[in-house]
């Protein structure tokens, strides 16, 4: 059963992408095709999770080559759980994007490109989760990165190119570090199969082990946005279209976290770099959340909280105990869902209010109570208010930290509490400003044009974009078209729609929100709430997964037995 199902999360989206390219002239077919493909992938992933939970880890060699030589896909509890969560949010985001595309025509998401690329992205994520050898993991990363480059620069507006350049260059560098790490691992051990590596790496001298471990950690740390390597993320994510940012925030960094979990537990169980990871986790949490508090743009604020909460997962990994890993696994699942949802809500806020700058927004709670609820519940969940799943995840991690009892772990427990409180502060600021204050207090509506003229060259897209052509000539200095283009090129990252036709923002603010988009977001919000209800079974699953991770034998045995058979 697993032999048939395991390759499907990779194969189906790739075939679907090819199909979506073939029918690129018919948006309706394309939408139906990609939605059906992702729904099937979700069903397959759920089945895999049940099988893996029942039977334990199992390996499938692809293409008929025996195990140490051929490519092997491994389904264990961790990878199956990641697959389920990833395909769920991917489906939700796709429905949201379909709704957005239907509402906007092809203005926001060039449909013929979006769907195939999105499916390739899902295939890359699936491949990274299932990969049983380091090089296949690298290929999975490259597939999803290549798709993400295209998605991030979709439409090729100046702001997106600007943000995209940072992202592409940083990702390329991390891929090269990863590839060099693979080369060194191969030179040292003569294999890239992770199960064999788990056996052979332990026989190496300690210094070599630490070198290999740190190279892989640096490569994955860049992808997961762990602190000293996280500066690229808040710079590049906010410029992309809302569904793209949402799926990036949910999945891409978590693939990095998954890779860290896998390599730390399976390949380098000695925990030689656990102390480094501890302090990196602390710095990630605190620096990230302090950045979030300083932001006045909703999407940038969310990007910083994304960085900050990666720290919790790294904390769980650094503890290295089964309890810590269980907390980290649960937190990854929770955070994928929650962060995706919040970015989708940010997309809705942008449609409703015409901007994501909290200084300009106001009165959203009165204008759209549903939107307010959709923001409030996941925001409280992110901050970790009981009884929501964010609280359960944080509690599990903090308990694991206290149980560890070392001074570093206790410092991190304190840091985790502070981060949680500061997250509450950051989302509460957005709530009071964008949603709660009376709309009259905000210049978002009638006075937007005046404010935009006032803001002059600093103005930042959205509603004030309505005054684009009106304000420029009356500015303090005449601008040539070239200078104007350059100014737009370096425009602030918050200018997500700088090239919209004038008045689009203003018109949009009055339109009701498309039902499909709200429906998709509401479904994901319901999912995050359901995670609270299902926390018991889910945490149990995370526990069992982390016991497997700490023991290592189920994974290794499944792969090497496959080789014997």
């Amino acid at each position, binding site marked *: 059963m697993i032999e048939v199902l395991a390759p499907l999360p990779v194969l189906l989206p790739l075939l679907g992408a090819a199909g979506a390219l073939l029918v690129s002239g018919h948006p309706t077919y394309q939408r139906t095709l990609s939605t059906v493909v992702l729904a099937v992938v979700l069903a397959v992933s759920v089945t895999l999770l049940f099988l893996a939970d029942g039977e334990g880890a199992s390996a499938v060699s692809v293409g008929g080559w025996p195990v140490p030589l051929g490519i092997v896909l491994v389904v264990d509890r961790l990878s199956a759980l990641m697959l389920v969560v990833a395909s769920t949010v991917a489906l939700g985001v796709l429905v949201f994007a379909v709704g957005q595309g239907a509402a906007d025509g092809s203005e926001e998401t060039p449909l013929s490109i979006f769907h195939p690329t999105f499916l390739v992205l899902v295939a890359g994520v699936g491949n990274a989760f299932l990969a049983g050898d380091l*090089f296949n993991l690298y*290929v999975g990363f*490259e597939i999803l990165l*290549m798709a993400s*480059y*295209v998605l991030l*620069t979709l439409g*090729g507006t*100046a702001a997106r*190119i*600007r943000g*995209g*350049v*940072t992202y*592409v*260059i940083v990702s*390329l*560098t991390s891929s*090269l570090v990863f*590839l*060099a790490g*693979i*080369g*060194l691992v*191969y*030179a040292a051990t*003569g294999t*890239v199969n992770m199960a064999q590596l788990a056996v052979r790496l332990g026989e190496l001298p300690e210094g070599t082990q630490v070198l290999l471990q740190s190279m892989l950690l640096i490569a994955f740390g860049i992808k997961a946005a762990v602190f000293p390597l996280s500066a690229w993320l808040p*710079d590049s994510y906010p410029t992309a279209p809302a569904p793209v940012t949402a799926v990036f925030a949910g999945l891409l960094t978590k693939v990095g976290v998954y890779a860290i979990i896998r390599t730390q537990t399976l390949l380098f169980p000695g925990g030689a770099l656990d102390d480094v990871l501890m302090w990196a986790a602390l710095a990630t949490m605190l620096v990230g959340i302090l950045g979030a508090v*300083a932001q006045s743009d909703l999407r*940038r604020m969310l990007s910083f909280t994304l960085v900050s909460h990666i720290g919790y997962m790294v904390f769980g990994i650094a503890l290295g105990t089964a309890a810590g890993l269980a907390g980290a696994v649960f937190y990854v699942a929770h955070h994928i869902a929650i962060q995706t949802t919040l970015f989708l809500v940010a997309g809705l806020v942008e449609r409703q209010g015409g901007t994501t*700058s*909290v*200084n*300009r927004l106001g009165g959203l709670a009165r204008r759209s109570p549903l939107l307010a609820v959709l923001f409030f519940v996941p925001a409280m969940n992110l901050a970790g208010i009981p009884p929501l799943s964010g609280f359960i995840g944080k509690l599990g991690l903090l308990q694991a930290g206290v149980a560890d009892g070392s001074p570093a772990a206790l410092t991190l427990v304190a840091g985790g509490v502070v981060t949680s409180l500061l997250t509450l502060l950051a989302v509460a600021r957005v709530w009071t*400003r964008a949603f709660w*204050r009376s709309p*009259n*207090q*905000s*210049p978002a509506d009638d*006075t937007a044009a*005046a*404010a935009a*003229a*006032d*803001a002059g060259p*600093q*103005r*930042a897209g959205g509603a004030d974009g309505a005054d684009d052509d009106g304000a420029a000539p009356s500015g303090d200095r005449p601008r040539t078209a*070239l200078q104007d*283009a*350059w100014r*737009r*090129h*370096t*425009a*602030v*990252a*918050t200018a997500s729609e700088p090239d919209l036709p004038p008045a689009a923002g203003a018109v949009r603010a009055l339109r009701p929100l498309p039902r499909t988009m709200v429906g998709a977001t509401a479904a994901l919000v319901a999912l995050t709430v359901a995670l609270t209800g299902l926390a018991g079974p889910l945490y149990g699953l995370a526990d069992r997964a982390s016991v497997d991770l700490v023991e290592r034998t189920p994974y290794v045995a499944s792969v090497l037995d496959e080789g014997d058979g």
Partner: protein
Amino acid sequence: MTPTIVLPVMIGGLYAAGVYLLLDRSLTRVLLGFVLLGNATNLLVLSAGGPSGLAPILGYGDPEGFNDPLPQALILTAIVITFGVSAFVLAIIHRSWRLARNEAVGTDEEDRRVAARRATDADELDPDDLDPQDRAAGHADSLAADPEDLADDVDVPAGSGTR
């Protein structure tokens, strides 16, 4: 197996030149740097395959007479990936040039704005000195209208003006 000095020197040189170019603001140089780094990495993986100069697989024979074919297969994949990504970066450079006649990496203005905020108490700031974006939301000055006119029809709660 005799150790060779040529490969390590070349790998080191390529890495050094690649990193130097990668740190430039001009995107074309960044791309060139990336290509150099990619080649350096490929050579690194190649040197993991054993002594240089032997064919990977040549007919049937003693395995001692072959080089390890796996690193070469890995490099082949990596070269294809590098090629695709380089093409994409070129496309970005072209687009950047078309948009702005400039292909240097720009400054992040939003970062600058956040960084330029003073560490002073918010109460001591004169909102008129601030960028309109940074003015407190409910502040009359941010409405770009005469505060006297607004006083009648806007219900400003106490305290919001000083935020």
